[in-house]
């Protein structure tokens, strides 16, 4: 009996259960978010959105997913085959792995690493590589344009993101995400560092290629940007990665600024998800309200405004902490 209990408690089982949970969460989350996006956009545009499949179109994303999975995997002739095949996988895996360190509640965290936040930031940069791989291997001018734009955009917006996160880390003194959440048991950091929150949300919108910063996917200019040549299940993977990225970005913002799983009465997990989805709704709200920012304005905005602001924020944080 002791052996059985030890076995169940071991890290291996812990991680396996976590992995299965994450895959389930990612799939369901993506389906749910796609449906939410369609409904939110529809209601903002004075129309009902999907209503046919299931009650209020709830099964629409499932139907779309089945359709995408059943499509033939077409590989255009002129593409660079190894890189073309790898790109969707490279875009999806890091996002999946970021789930390892997110604290869904006090106990629900797959692996509470010492370098939690650094891991997530590192993995989010890998998706840029995947976009470049997709755009380049497609052998298509539109895709290359989309990829180039995406790389420039992501590089530009990584820096204020990192510096903003640094100001939070300075306050907490640890990279562990559970420590960051624990430090917010009295007040959430959004009230202590509102500027950092604004900067983070702006950079997160840009990092996840969401409107108004969605130039790499600009439909009306570049057909479909870097994933023009992808169809069927490969396209579905890009799509899945994008929505999961939105979830991760909102989850990190929740952990850093909104107190993670803290909240009265309801269990931590429920609060966590409420906060994450509130931020996701905010990101969707942005998409359906604003026109697209032009590319040079986008890059200028980051280098000339966001980066100086984030450094100012960091300096003020350091100064205040020193004074204490």
């Amino acid at each position, binding site marked *: 009996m002791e052996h059985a209990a030890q076995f169940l408690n071991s890290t291996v089982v812990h991680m396996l259960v976590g992995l299965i949970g994450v895959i389930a969460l990612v799939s369901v989350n993506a389906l749910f978010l796609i449906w939410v996006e369609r409904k939110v956009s529809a209601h903002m*545009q004075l129309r009902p959105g999907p209503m046919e499949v299931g009650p209020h179109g709830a099964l629409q994303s499932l139907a779309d997913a089945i359709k995408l999975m059943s499509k033939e995997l077409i590989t255009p002739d002129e593409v660079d085959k190894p890189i073309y095949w790898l790109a969707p996988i490279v875009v999806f895996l890091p996002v999946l792995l970021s789930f390892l360190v997110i604290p869904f509640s006090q106990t629900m965290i797959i692996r509470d690493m010492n370098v939690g936040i650094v891991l997530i930031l590192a993995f989010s940069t890998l998706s840029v590589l995947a976009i470049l791989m997709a755009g380049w291997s497609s052998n298509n*001018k539109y895709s290359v344009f989309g990829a180039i734009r995406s790389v420039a955009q992501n590089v530009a917006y990584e820096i204020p993101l990192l510096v903003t996160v640094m100001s939070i880390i300075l306050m907490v003194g640890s990279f562990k995400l559970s420590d960051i959440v624990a430090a917010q048991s009295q007040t959430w950091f959004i009230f202590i560092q509102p500027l950092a929150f604004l900067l983070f949300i702006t950079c997160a919108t840009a990092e996840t290629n969401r409107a108004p910063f969605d130039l790499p996917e600009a439909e*009306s*200019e570049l057909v479909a940007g870097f994933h023009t040549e992808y169809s069927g299940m490969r396209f579905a993977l890009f799509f899945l990665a994008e929505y999961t990225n939105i979830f991760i970005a909102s989850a990190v913002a929740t952990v850093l600024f909104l107190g993670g799983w803290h909240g009265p009465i309801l269990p931590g997990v429920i609060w966590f998800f409420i906060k994450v989805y509130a931020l996701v709704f905010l990101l969707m709200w942005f*998409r359906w*309200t*604003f026109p*697209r920012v032009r590319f040079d304005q986008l890059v200028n905005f980051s280098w000339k405004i966001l980066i100086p602001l984030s450094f100012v924020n960091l300096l003020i944080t350091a100064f205040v902490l020193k004074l204490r």
Partner: protein
Amino acid sequence: MIELYGIEEKTYTLNLGPQHPSTHGVLRVLLEMEGEFISKAEPVIGYGHRGHEHMAENRNYQQFLPNMGRVDYLHALAYNQGYCMAVEKLLGLVVPERAEFIRVITAELNRITSHLLWFGAYLLDLGAFTPIMYAFDDREHILDLLDRITGSRLTYCFYRFGGVPVDLDDEFITGTRAFIQRLRSRWVDYDNLVTKNVIFINRARDVGLITKDQCVKYGITGPNLRGSGIPYDIRKSEPYSAYPLFDFEVPIGSKGDIFDRYMVRLQEMEQSCRIIEQALDKLPNGPIMAEKVPKRIKPPVGEVYQAVETARGEFGIYIVSQGDVKPYRVKLRVPSFANLSLFPELAVDTLVADLVAILGSVDVVIPEIDR
């Protein structure tokens, strides 16, 4: 080709193909680019050439009437009006006052639908997905109103030589008045959502400048011309139909950038509302068709040029008659033809994103260019 440290740089050719979400019809633009900057843009047209002018020579004057609604389907009633007025000039027909008022009311309603569609589609090009839905919602009301009396939603063929065939009924009049009230409350929404949006202003200010000199050299007309500060509107400068009886302004811009053209179109919609209200207030009783309209339309030998102001600019129709039931030659002078010919000059040294913005702000409808 630039020689840089012994490496030759070539420009990069990109094709904004005939099928593209932003080219508003079947337009192909051949771009030569250096990085993200355009060095040369050449529009290629003719994908929608249907031979309207040839059809005119092989049909009676009445049989050619429906064609006019298909040339520019967005402001079809103005083209109807131009053609009818040209033939009426040749025949010496006088249109009764009530018919002129009806023509003005319906043409102005059509102008509002055209500008609303431009507004929605232009914002869609810039990446805002919501304004088009609101604009089309408003547009649906107008289409329902016009559907009641003309029988069509888009490609109207409503006017006849000598007047209009169907009179306005009370439901149309009350519906139109109610709609104008509703539309006026929408201006606030459009203002808050778009006009005051800093992202939109940054994309529209100081981009795509059209100078007055270019306007004269290329024959630019319509909101593009008025955005550059020249107050030329045919309804005021060469008044026709019942327009002299109404009090309205001609909005103009100052710099000639995209934002000015956008504001001109928005303000024109408000001025159209004013015209419609005045027309409904002053609507006279009387016949809607001229008395002696010949059964066989056989104008005497001669020629005529008639200009009307459409949503896109000046539509001119030039008819040469040699005394036959069919016109000898019909030339359709469409505003988008001249407006698009300026585009290569506007596009030099801009970014691809700006290219789409400039093309949209010029408001071209390809079927009227191709005829």
